[in-house]
């Protein structure tokens, strides 16, 4: 197990920075997810940690050891690839034992560790099969077994579930998390799937255009997004710009495009006259009842029944807002509705 430190890490391709001066510290045994859209630099960061890329600037430390120029085969990391990258000419046993052979682990110890990994990932009985004779889920488990059997300092995951179907994806991500918790290996996980990131991580690093937008635990990232990008990328969000027309204590009164609203802003220094960006989640728009704050009247543009809930697109003073309601009430396109938003549901964005 290692503590990972990235200091001012920069990696350029053809003069363009794919990763631009990022700083990150990952504690021993922590499960951190790099989350962002394609081209945000998350895979480049992961491959730089693995040693496939040498940083153009900055440093990579495993504990206190500078790793910048240490080749991949000399770093004790293990990576699970998006395509699994199993060796097609080797059977399951030889695939899993490969890293141990490279590390010249004694034969008896190899056997013990491979056997243990096979049992841990429910692969017993598949030892003699070639990767081509396994299902996607089984191949992913072999890739996991191959990674953990070497007892790496850091486990690296490069979108390992993206080739699996939706149901299997949920199942394998639970297996990955359980296994990581049991073994306590420091893990860096790359994905563009926000649900996966929220479900699996101790902390999430949201990346955009080579920068880190926000780092935090899933709860914080979802409920307290700092930037419009994070608010928009993680889950659904209504993001607007408004003008502060008054402040009384921690409550701001804001003139927004869809009407005047009051929001709580305890840690903010904004004053009357300032322009602010803010967000709120669709599920924070609740059907209005007497006495509730921030009453909004609108017309339903589209109502999409999702089974457990209904997604609503609502026109409020010419602005399109997204709301989410339960499944008890049936909504129709064109219905007039009244919503309320709690003062504490709003988030001021940077």
């Amino acid at each position, binding site marked *: 197990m290692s503590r990972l430190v990235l200091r001012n890490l920069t990696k350029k391709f053809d003069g363009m920075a794919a990763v631009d001066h990022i700083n990150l510290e990952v504690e021993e045994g922590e499960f951190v997810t790099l989350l962002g859209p394609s081209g945000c630099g998350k895979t480049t960061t992961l491959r730089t940690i693995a040693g496939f890329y040498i940083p153009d600037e900055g440093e990579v430390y495993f504990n206190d050891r500078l790793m910048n120029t240490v080749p991949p*085969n000399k770093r004790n990391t*293990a990576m699970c690839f998006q*395509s699994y*990258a199993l*060796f097609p*000419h080797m059977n399951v046993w030889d695939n899993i034992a*490969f890293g141990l052979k490279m590390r010249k682990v004694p034969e008896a110890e190899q056997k013990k560790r491979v056997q243990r990994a096979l049992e841990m990932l429910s692969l017993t009985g598949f030892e003699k099969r070639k990767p081509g004779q396994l299902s996607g889920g089984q191949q992913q488990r072999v890739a996991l077994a191959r990674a953990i059997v070497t007892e790496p300092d850091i486990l690296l995951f490069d979108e390992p579930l993206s080739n699996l179907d939706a149901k299997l994806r949920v199942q394998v991500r639970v297996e990955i998390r359980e296994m990581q918790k049991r073994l306590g290996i420091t893990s860096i996980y790359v994905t563009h799937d926000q649900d996966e990131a929220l479900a699996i991580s101790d902390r999430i690093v949201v990346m955009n255009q080579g920068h880190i937008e926000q780092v935090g635990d899933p709860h914080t990232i979802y409920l307290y997004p700092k930037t419009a990008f994070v608010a928009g990328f993680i889950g659904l969000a209504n993001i607007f710009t408004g003008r502060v027309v008054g402040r009384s204590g921690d409550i701001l009164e804001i003139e927004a495009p869809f009407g005047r609203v009051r929001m709580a802003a305890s840690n903010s220094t904004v004053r009357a006259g300032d322009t602010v960006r803010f967000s709120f989640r669709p599920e924070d728009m609740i059907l209005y009842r007497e006495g509730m704050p921030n009453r909004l009247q609108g017309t339903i543009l589209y109502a999409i029944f999702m089974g457990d809930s209904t997604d609503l697109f609502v026109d409020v003073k010419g602005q399109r807002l997204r709301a989410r309601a339960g499944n008890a009430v049936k909504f129709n396109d064109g219905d007039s509705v009244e919503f309320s938003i709690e003062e504490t549901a709003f988030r001021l964005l940077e």
Partner: protein
Amino acid sequence: MQAKKESTAIYYLMILPGVGFIILFLGSSIFLTIAQSFGWFSVTGRSQFTLVNWKTLWERETLDSLVFSLKMGILSSIGTLIFAFPVALFLRKGGAGKRFLSSLIKIPLFIPALVAAFLILNLISYHGVVNEVLLALHIIKEPLRMLNDPFGWGVVAIQIWKNLPFVLLIVSASLASIRDDIIDAARNLGAGAFSILFRIYIPLAMPGILVSMILMFIKAFGDFPITSVAGPNYPPSIALRMRNTATLFQEWDKAAVMGVIIIGTTLVMTWLYSRLAQLVEGEKP
């Protein structure tokens, strides 16, 4: 039912030109060669079963030619692979000069074997470029006999030069099919350059390597033009002996035996290839 019959008929009609050509010209000529070796359908008009032609198999000259051709086939295929594999690896990885090298190395592919033999002849002849340079540099005191040398190294050298691009194309295609993430995975798991070469590149490129080796063997084993220009005075290659037996000595049935030997050896080598390929790919559970 009627439609199915019609589509089957169309299917056979479509494959007829290709398959028919093979059956007519290849199948019938192989059949005739085998038949003639046993005395049937002789060019002299006689047709009677006999094993007398097969006595040539135990004649010293035939055996020498067979051994020489086997030697040329094996050494040329191994030699070409040794030269081609590192170039194919370089071309896979890319880097400066990749396109130039790739074009340069294909040149021999467009030169006929006989012309190639004469080109190389200028290089390795008694007073060729190589000997003159070595003499000028005082590395040797008198010219080396590289052409028509008794062992056949000159033939091997020309075979390698001539067939390098051919083998390179096959091996390169094999190496190109190996995904980069597989190499990355091996590096990530602790494999150094040698381990990656011997445990990943070579086993995964093995089908291509074996195909190129067997094709190269067949070409060099049955070679006629290169051996006739650069080969030793004795023994001639089995193909050269076959030509001489037929056209110089007018022993067509005996030449047919040598033809059967060439075909038989090729079939044995192909069988060996398929066995090796099976071993490499492993048994299916």
